């Protein structure tokens, strides 16, 4: 009896997991099937592999290295605007990459603030394109993530330990050795690996700031083989390389146990007795000031530059914005449709261990590159329909897949908590199947559902990935339209479009997240 009840209850979860497996591994299979057997990697492919690993390593090392002093300063200081700074650290996650790149160009680009300042001293401007541009953008995105991860670990050191250390007369050096070093040794490898993985699979940054024989990532090489040469065999070979690289990094990251960065409670500050000196205070102030400026300046430049040109935006940009909103809403809906049944299944099966298998399937899409999924879908769709006509639905589907691990991470613990608190009552009242979903789970999960939908929507809104593969000039999304404006050096309009995209992404997240909170009964 239990067996049949299980099958019926988890049918949707099994279907979702199967679809996800198809999208990640199935598309990879389609790509491999098209790859030319026996074809080896050429010199430029090896250069792409080397560049991918090098930039990912540098991005991760710099992000984590800079995050340690910043997290320490945030952990031990209280000041006006600290809460705002912590909130700001969460923003890059939903910030469209292309917008950030435009902001970074305004600060570090050829005619940016930095170049102007260097000009005053008669120095040549630094080029932002190439390795250091790619690394700079990755640090911009991942430094905040690293700070949040490390800050969390810092605040998890019990306050009593610091008090004990102080009572033993430990100074800053001793506290670092006794308390902080062991904590860092536990959290830093995981943070490093997750940023390494993100930087390795990032596409839009390499597309806009990289390129050329010396700054091409594997992901970018897939795009070029597909888009410029339409060499499916070559694209397929590179896709396999990318999957192996990302899969290895992801497996390593899970083996090391990546810390969860979505946790709340970062507004706490630990009372410290070893760091009261004026010099240390100054040091923390400088670190936080630099990090804050690094994050805020590019965004401010977008806002300032974009407002003036807003009136000049053509109808095509607004149409693209409309398409993007549609894609984002579809991606958010698809993400929930896939995640919810999986989350219900995982939380229901934990005791039997089968849940872990489904959970692992959910995380496969971290290792799967969106461009590989896109390439695979292209190959599969090509014989039966025109893939370009399906560009927008495919973009929504791929984005739903890439957001799924984050949604899963939020929803699984939430479902467990609801079942632990109210599962027995629902059982006693005979609430099963749909009535349980409608009357218990959905109302109690409003907040995590709103958050997940907002995340998926905002990520899809700003995504400049798989859409570039299919790009139909008449069916661009807003990020793609923005990329084209940039490529055409229409700087003012690009800034205005970026401001529009930024506003839409933030609104997308805010509205969903808010919707989950309003009138939610504790």
């Amino acid at each position, binding site marked *: 009896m239990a067996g049949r009840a299980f099958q019926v209850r988890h049918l949707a979860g099994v279907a979702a997991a199967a679809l996800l497996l198809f999208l990640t591994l199935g598309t990879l299979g389609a790509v491999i099937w098209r790859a030319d057997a026996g074809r080896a990697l050429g010199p430029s492919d090896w250069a792409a592999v080397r560049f991918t690993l090098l930039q990912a390593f540098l991005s991760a090392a710099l992000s984590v290295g800079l995050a340690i002093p910043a997290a320490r300063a945030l952990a031990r200081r209280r000041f006006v605007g600290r809460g705002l700074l912590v909130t700001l650290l969460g923003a890059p996650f939903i910030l469209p990459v292309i917008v950030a790149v435009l902001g970074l160009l305004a600060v570090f680009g050829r005619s940016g603030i930095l170049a102007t300042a260097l000009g005053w001293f008669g120095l040549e401007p630094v080029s932002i394109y190439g390795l250091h541009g790619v690394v700079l953008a990755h640090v911009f995105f991942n430094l905040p993530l690293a700070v949040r991860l490390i800050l969390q670990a810092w605040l998890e050191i019990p306050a009593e330990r610091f008090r004990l250390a102080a009572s033993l007369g430990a100074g800053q050096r001793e506290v670092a050795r006794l308390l902080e070093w062991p904590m860092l040794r536990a959290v830093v490898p995981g943070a490093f690996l997750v940023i390494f993985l993100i930087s390795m699979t990032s596409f839009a940054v390499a597309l806009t700031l990289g390129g050329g024989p010396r700054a091409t990532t594997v992901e970018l090489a897939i795009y070029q083989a597909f888009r410029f040469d339409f060499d499916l065999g070559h694209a397929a070979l590179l896709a396999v390389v990318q999957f192996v690289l990302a899969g290895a990094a992801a497996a390593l990251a899970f083996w090391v146990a990546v810390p969860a960065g979505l946790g709340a409670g970062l507004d706490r500050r630990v009372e410290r007795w070893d760091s009261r000196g004026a010099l240390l205070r100054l040091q923390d102030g400088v670190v936080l000031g630099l990090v804050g400026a690094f994050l805020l300046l590019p965004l401010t430049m977008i806002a300032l530059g974009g407002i003036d040109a807003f009136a000049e935006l053509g109808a095509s940009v607004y149409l693209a914005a409309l398409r993007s909103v549609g894609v984002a809403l579809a991606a958010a809906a698809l993400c929930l449709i896939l995640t919810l049944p999986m989350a219900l299944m995982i939380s229901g099966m934990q005791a039997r261990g089968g849940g872990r298998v489904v959970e692992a399937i959910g995380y496969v899409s971290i290792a799967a590159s969106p461009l590989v999924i896109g390439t695979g879908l292209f190959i599969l769709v090509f014989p039966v329909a025109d893939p370009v006509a399906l560009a927008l639905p495919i973009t929504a589907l791929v984005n739903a897949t890439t957001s799924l691990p984050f949604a899963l991470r939020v929803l699984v613990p939430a479902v467990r908590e609801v079942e632990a608190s109210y599962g*027995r009552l629902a*059982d006693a009242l*005979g*609430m099963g199947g749909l009535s349980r979903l409608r009357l218990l789970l959905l109302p109690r999960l409003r907040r995590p559902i709103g958050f997940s939908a907002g995340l998926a929507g905002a990520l899809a809104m700003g995504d400049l990935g798989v859409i570039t593969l299919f790009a139909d000039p008449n069916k661009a999304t807003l990020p793609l339209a923005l990329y084209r404006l940039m490529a055409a050096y229409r700087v003012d309009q690009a800034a205005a479009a970026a401001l529009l995209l930024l506003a839409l992404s933030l609104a997308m997240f805010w509205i969903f997240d808010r919707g989950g909170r309003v009138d939610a009964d504790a």
Partner: protein
Amino acid sequence: MLTLEQISLSRGDFSLSADFLLEAGTRTAVIGPSGAGKSTLFDVIAGFTQPQGGRVLWMGRDLSDVAPGKRPFSVLFQDNNLFPHLTAAQNVGLGLNPALKLNAADRARVAQALERVGLTGFEGRKPGALSGGQQGRVGLARILLTARPLVMLDEPFSALGPALKAEMLRLLAEVLDETGASLLMVTHEPQDARLIAGQTVLVSGGVAHAPVATETLLDNPPPELREYLG
């Protein structure tokens, strides 16, 4: 009539056995030291836990394959008896239909039940806007409405103060009088047992003993109960 037929289960160091019956119309308290297995016994009868051996029967019918919601029992837990996102009326209405599909007659019965426990005018309030005592009354209104033949309570109203709790137990007794239901109540308070239950099951040493008259048991406690009562 509830029959516990050679019930047994064990997990690690913990074990519990029970083999007795409760006549229809009786009110039974279950007391014993914490960790002895009171709540496990409750879960076995309510259907949340499957025993390793033995059967639970109601009026001679084997309940082994009957899901908790389909057993002829209404249940109140220590806490979380109301869904915080549903109104008082909806929480009561769930007792009539777990999908909350209620017709006009059903809604009238819900209003009647709420009126019986003194909550007229509170239909649209959510639990967060009700006091602890009022929340207890909503739970009792649901029991009144489901009118199942056995009411099971696991440390009910333990979040309430003594006076409010006694008031709830009195209201519970009235509800039982009106529905003619039997009662099985897990408690750690001997006072509760005296107040409402004519007979008491003592759970200790891995055994749920057959019920004896509450006064007799509490006035002349066996050694293991005397140790617990202090």
